[in-house]
């Protein structure tokens, strides 16, 4: 049986934890609002970009000669995975779901005999993956988007990816991130970035809402004219599209992180409340029991006289 002093100490420590978690919840809620607006504002742009690419690729025709970013290197031997996680913890299953998905992907690819490389964005994912796959990590970046996520961050990642792609270090690149659905729900998505995957042929993940948009199909219409020329447009559009898709993943991930943290901190606050109630009850019972015991001692002492 814990003494009254122990109980008092525990109650006060749980109370201060609760203060911290509820403050974190408030902070996450206000950050979430901004991040969510940013993420949702970014979606139409990324979709239009995708639609334009679909138009371009359809006019190139099947088997057409395009830049390497579009057609790939002709091999799918080396895969580069880009898991996007947060720099800070205390956000529920946010990071672990990304890590779990990354691990599953690595195992599936290795089972097929492919080479896998990792480009970790975010401290938490890097720390966990380094334990198991330290030899696979070719690069990692932390403190992305601090103090504020900007397009320049996406450009930086894009440039690093392109440099490695040009050097022939990988053939296929996919990014793994949490798509923001709502404050309490995030969905892990793995769109392929290099070579560019068209929504129609792509996996369910890339088809998403981009696929629906493409349904009012530019393919059925007359072919596009190009100004200046297809090659020049593609040479500019493809790297730009890459940056836009990365930026979108970063935005979605940032919004998801705040959502996950808010939910996690909300339930932590509630748990702390329950715990305080239990402990207070136990404290009062113990106190009462002690008073009763003392009374009995006094009474029986008096009776004995």
């Amino acid at each position, binding site marked *: 049986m814990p003494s009254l002093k122990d109980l008092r100490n525990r109650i006060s420590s749980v109370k201060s934890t609760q203060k911290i978690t509820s403050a974190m919840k408030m902070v996450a809620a206000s950050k979430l609002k901004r991040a969510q607006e940013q993420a949702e504002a970014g979606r139409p*742009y990324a979709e*239009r*970009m995708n*639609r*334009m690419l679909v*138009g*371009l690729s359809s006019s190139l025709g099947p088997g057409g000669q395009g830049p390497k970013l579009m057609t790939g290197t002709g091999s799918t031997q080396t895969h580069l995975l880009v898991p996007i996680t947060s720099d800070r913890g205390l956000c529920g299953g946010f990071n672990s779901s990304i890590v779990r998905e990354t691990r599953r992907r690595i195992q599936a690819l290795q089972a097929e005999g492919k080479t896998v490389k990792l480009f970790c964005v975010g401290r938490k994912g890097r720390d966990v993956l380094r334990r198991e796959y330290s030899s696979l990590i070719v690069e990692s970046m932390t403190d992305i988007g601090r103090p504020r996520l900007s397009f320049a961050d996406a450009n930086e990642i894009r440039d690093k990816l392109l440099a490695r792609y040009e050097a022939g270090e990988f053939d296929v690149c996919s990014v793994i991130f949490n798509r923001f659905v709502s404050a309490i729900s995030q969905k892990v998505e793995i769109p392929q970035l290099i070579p560019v995957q068209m929504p129609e042929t792509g996996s369910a993940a890339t088809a998403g809402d981009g696929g629906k948009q493409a349904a009012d199909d*530019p393919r059925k*219409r*007359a*072919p*596009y*004219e*190009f*100004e*200046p020329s297809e090659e*020049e*447009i593609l040479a*500019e*559009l493809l790297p*730009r599209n890459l940056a836009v898709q990365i930026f979108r993943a970063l935005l979605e991930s940032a919004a998801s992180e705040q959502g996950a943290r808010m939910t996690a901190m909300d339930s932590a606050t509630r748990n702390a409340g329950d715990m305080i109630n239990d402990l207070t009850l136990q404290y009062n019972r113990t106190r009462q029991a002690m008073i009763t015991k003392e009374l009995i001692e006094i009474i029986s002492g008096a009776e004995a006289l």
Partner: protein
Amino acid sequence: MAEDSEMVVVPGADGNFGVLAGHAPMISTVRPGVIDVYSRRPQVAHRVFVAGGFAEVTPDRCTVLAEEAIAVGDLNAAAVDQEISDLADDLAEAKTEAERAAVERALEVARAKRLALAS
């Protein structure tokens, strides 16, 4: 930003082009310059400065994906002049080829802003 309009004039890489409804499908790169949106000719409803990007034209819509978009009314002549002189200084100090190219691009955008204000 999205709205119905009668005609849009876009600064394409190979020269300005106007888009009316029913225009043939086209994709073009956009150089730094001003997009004129006409809700009813000959009145210009908006003038928007863009720092380059891409334009996709279909018979029923014209989409411009811009790298940076500012309403011309929000541009500030003094700030733009300051930007141009700052960038000119940077250009003199740029050491590597890549740095020089980046500054030159920024300078081009700033000069286009100046032109947008003058017109």
